[in-house]
């Protein structure tokens, strides 16, 4: 059984030396098993905070999270996170960075058995030949791709991605989107995906969550009724344009997007 998540009236207050910052207020969201949920919203609205709370890295100040109906406090098993910053380990080669979760969770033996898969992943993100390089020898986008590989190699049931394609060019991005869709089809994992690209969100998701800023809250949830599997033709579906402009207009009324 895969993960179904329920965020119930989550609020989050950060304590800072210059006072409290209300980052989230009454965020209420349910994430169905095996679904692909995107979160879009202006910079600083609390997307990362939501993701960190789902990941169990941050405790909500109010509200609660339920997993399959049960209160969820600690770490979520079978979860993988792509952070907004590529947090690569300077002392490990690219390959060892990718294999890091395997080694740490299942030991050296399993790591060895997973090398082929890691090479495969690296190849699929265009990093063939860079396996033995160190993070400081990579470009920004390459680092981000390594971080994505590190998440995917874990075969998670729940994949959390915080602007994973931000530093990538259009083609690599496109390829990674297809890879991601294929994997989530194959392994049937649940994905929470943060992005600034409305098109990307609509293209990938079963549901797009639109947030508005400070304190962050959910303005609207837009289920995407595009056909599956998604491919080059998806963008040509009339619903695609519909959804995109629906979200655009929300942003416009919220003053988050200037009128065209």
């Amino acid at each position: 059984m895969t993960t179904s998540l329920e965020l119930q009236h989550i609020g989050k207050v950060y304590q800072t030396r210059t006072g409290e910052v209300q980052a989230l207020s009454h965020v209420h969201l349910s994430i169905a098993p095996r679904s692909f949920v995107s979160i879009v919203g202006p910079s600083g609205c609390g997307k990362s905070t939501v993701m960190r709370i789902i990941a169990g890295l941050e405790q909500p100040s109010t509200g609660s999270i339920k997993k399959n109906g049960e209160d969820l406090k600690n770490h979520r098993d079978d979860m993988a996170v792509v952070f907004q910053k590529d947090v690569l380990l300077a002392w490990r080669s690219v390959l060892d960075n990718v294999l890091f979760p395997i080694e740490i969770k299942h030991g050296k033996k399993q790591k060895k058995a997973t090398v082929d898969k890691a090479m495969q992943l690296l190849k699929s993100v265009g990093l063939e030949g860079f396996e033995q390089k160190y993070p400081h020898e990579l470009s920004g986008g390459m680092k981000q791709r390594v971080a994505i590989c590190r998440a995917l190699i874990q075969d998670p049931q729940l994949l959390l991605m915080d602007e994973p394609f931000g530093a990538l060019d259009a083609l690599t991005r496109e390829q990674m989107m297809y890879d991601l869709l294929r994997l989530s089809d194959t392994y049937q994992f649940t994905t929470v995906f943060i992005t600034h690209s409305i098109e990307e969100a609509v293209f990938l998701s079963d549901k797009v969550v639109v947030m508005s800023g400070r304190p962050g809250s959910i303005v609207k949830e837009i289920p995407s009724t595009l056909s599956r599997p998604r491919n080059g033709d998806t963008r040509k579906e009339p619903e695609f344009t519909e959804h995109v402009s629906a979200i655009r207009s929300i942003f416009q009324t919220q003053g988050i997007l200037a009128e065209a």
Partner: protein
Amino acid sequence: MQTKTETTWMKQAKQKNVKRIQIPHSLWAGFTLIGFFLVWQLATMLLAIPQYLLPSPLIIFTRVLSESQVLLSHALTTLAEVGLGFALSVSIGIPLAIAIVYSRYLANALYPILIAIQCIPMVSIAPILVIWFGYGLTTKILLACLISFFPIVINAVTGFRSLDKDMHDLGRSIGISEWKNFFYLRLPNALPHLFGGIKVGVTLAVVGAVVGEFVASERGLGYLQLTANARLDTPLVFATLFTLALIGMMLFGAVQLLERWLMPWYSANKAGG
């Protein structure tokens, strides 16, 4: 060693412009040391500083050479004590640092005791150790351990605490135990701090062993120095001190080599200097 050639952009530019033949830095350093000894030699000669106050380097070196057998055999004794004491120090110090990092309670309870040990001169503790542990090897090992302990613990604690939150979050997101988190993230991340402490610690261990020999021994460089002193043989005293310094440099150099070998990734990420 990328940084070596990249230190600052000013240097870089200069290097590009003026590609002259360069004498390696280490050679220059050797020259400086030789210069230092020369000044010393001249000073003792010109100021007629008597041998019993400060022997000239020439006399000391002559003595080091003529007594090299004696010095070596005593040095081996001392080195053994240093090695054992330092090994003990590291193998207690690092776990203790871990305990302190993970338990605020232990931090509060242990720090005062550690500081107490650190602030009480070894020459004061040494006689008590002799009475408790006898005048054998144990006492000297314990002294080497006690004296080198503190810098190792303090630096290790600072190092283990210096893990970036981002990285810690990565570990947590993978869902690993704090133990593995420690082993895979905190430990490698703390290495530069650890080596700082170990460099200080290993040289202090030499001091501890020698103090141990001052207090109770029939061998070792400390003993040699003491007997030379009793015979007013100042050149031999200085020859012993010279050997001690040599041992320290060797140990320090060994640690530095180990550091380079264990952290090849480090200098590439740093601005150098």
